[in-house]
């Protein structure tokens, strides 16, 4: 190979190197830019409508201006609380079963399959299911039915990520625990789950962030409520629901409130997730994440 030949090849390699790096950066920007754009847009559109009233007042009657989304914020909180109370334990429990007790069994495969299918069910169908299973027998709409719908939507994500994180805990750790004479359940809970907990928590937060913005399931279950309510047995308002109603309504005032609501929704999700990250990172020395 001539000297000219080698330098040509190395020049070509350098060009390819730069080109691919450039494409990777471009791809990253294509992901980040829309995200940033949305934030900025929301900020522009919604910040002007933010005031104290927004956070402490309920919606004004139809046609009137003023009012806020206090009940929607609290309502979302209640719904997400019920959903988490259902989705997190069941999801983690399923993940633990899949990873620790049912490895390779037919039941585990069936559960995994079911979870994947459930994941793919459109959220409005989930809402309809909750409607027919809870709202109709009870005879009324309720926060509870909405929470159930959202909770069930959480389960597949929580279960699958929990399973994956638990599987990432190396087997020698389990063996060490068993070798010390710990019963299997103790080993699973105190050692394996604890080691995988950062990752499991991340999975829960992913699921939480997803359902925090769901609107469709709430239409036939929580329904919405113009007034202040925290009663799980009654219809309840939710931020995404309220945003949708206002955005599709005729009133300019409501449109502005909708923008503010969207901004607040995203902000609250980010705050909630960051808070959980902060709290859990302080207690854990090192684990699988």
């Amino acid at each position, binding site marked *: 190979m001539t000297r000219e030949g080698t330098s040509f090849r190395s020049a070509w390699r350098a060009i390819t190197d730069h080109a691919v790096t450039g494409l990777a950066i471009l791809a990253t920007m294509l992901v980040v830019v829309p995200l940033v754009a949305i934030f900025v847009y929301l900020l522009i559109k919604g910040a002007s409508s933010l005031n104290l009233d927004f956070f402490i007042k309920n919606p004004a009657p139809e046609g009137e201006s003023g009012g806020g989304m206090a009940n929607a914020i609290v309502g979302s909180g209640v719904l997400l609380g019920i959903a988490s109370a259902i989705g997190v334990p069941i999801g983690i429990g399923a993940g633990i079963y899949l990873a620790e007790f049912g490895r390779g069994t037919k039941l585990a495969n069936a559960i995994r399959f079911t979870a994947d299918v459930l994941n793919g069910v459109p959220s409005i169908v989930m809402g309809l299911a909750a409607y027919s299973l809870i709202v109709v027998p009870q005879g009324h709409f309720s926060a509870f039915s909405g929470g159930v719908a959202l909770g069930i939507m959480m389960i597949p994500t929580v279960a699958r990520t929990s399973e994956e994180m638990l599987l990432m805990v190396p087997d020698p750790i389990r063996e*060490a625990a068993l*070798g010390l004479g710990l019963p299997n359940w103790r080993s699973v809970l105190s050692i394996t789950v604890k080691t995988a907990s950062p990752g499991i928590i991340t999975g829960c937060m992913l699921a939480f962030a997803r359902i925090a913005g769901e609107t469709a399931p709430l239409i036939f279950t929580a329904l919405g409520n113009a007034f202040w309510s925290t009663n799980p047995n009654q219809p309840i308002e939710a931020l995404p629901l309220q945003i949708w109603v206002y955005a599709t309504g005729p009133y300019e005032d409501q449109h502005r409130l909708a923008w503010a609501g969207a901004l607040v929704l995203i902000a609250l999700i980010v705050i909630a997730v960051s808070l959980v990250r902060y709290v859990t990172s302080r207690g854990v020395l090192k684990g699988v994440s």
Partner: protein
Amino acid sequence: MGVGIEVKNLNAWYGTNHTLQDINLNIPANHATALIGPSGCGKSTFVRCLNRMHETNPIARVTGTVRIGDLDIYNEAKPVEIRRRVGMVFQRPNPFPTMSIYENVASGLKLNGYSNRRVLDEIVERSLKNSALWDEVKDDLKSKSGASLSGGQQQRLCIARALAVDPEVLLMDEPASALDPVSTSKIEDLIFQLKSQYTIVIVTHNMQQAARVAEKTGFFLNGRMVEFDTTHKIFTNPSDKRTEDYITGRFG
């Protein structure tokens, strides 16, 4: 104090694979016994039968008896109880990553219900001293995680963890194979000291190591125990040609 182990007609299967065939041997108390043999000969399986760890594999099955002291471990006790009397140290150090050094050593006790702070402190200190790690970590017991130590230190930590539950027998499955020569020497010196208090069974690929630490050695081949005798005899003048071929490296 250590106890002797009596193995009679031990057979083990993984599914249809007859991994151990008719193993009979007596492991003396307060001695170190080495088990050597080529890969796949069954020595690791055998050792795991001594604390019923092989049962963590659902397709494992065992017949025969194993007596540890007076206890028939298959018919008279549960696996969890046995494992508190028979400790195990594995090939790759496996300290619990989410726990500090202190918590690692105390884990066997804490998670089994002991909570007396003072007693735990004493036991942790004694175990770390017995595993020749105390001086190196005594200032960082609670601030450093178990996984932040070097390989040799981690393995000694695992030994301390195993010793903390005060077993009578210590099983070591190639404990130094992942370590550098200096760490290996430290572990071997440790075994020498521990012999007086525990019965030690050590699986090793390294014949020189077996020769250095063990009074008795057993040679496993294809699931059978071919020869079991004093280490001196095995390495200077073994009775069985297969043993000789293996230790002279003539295995083909």
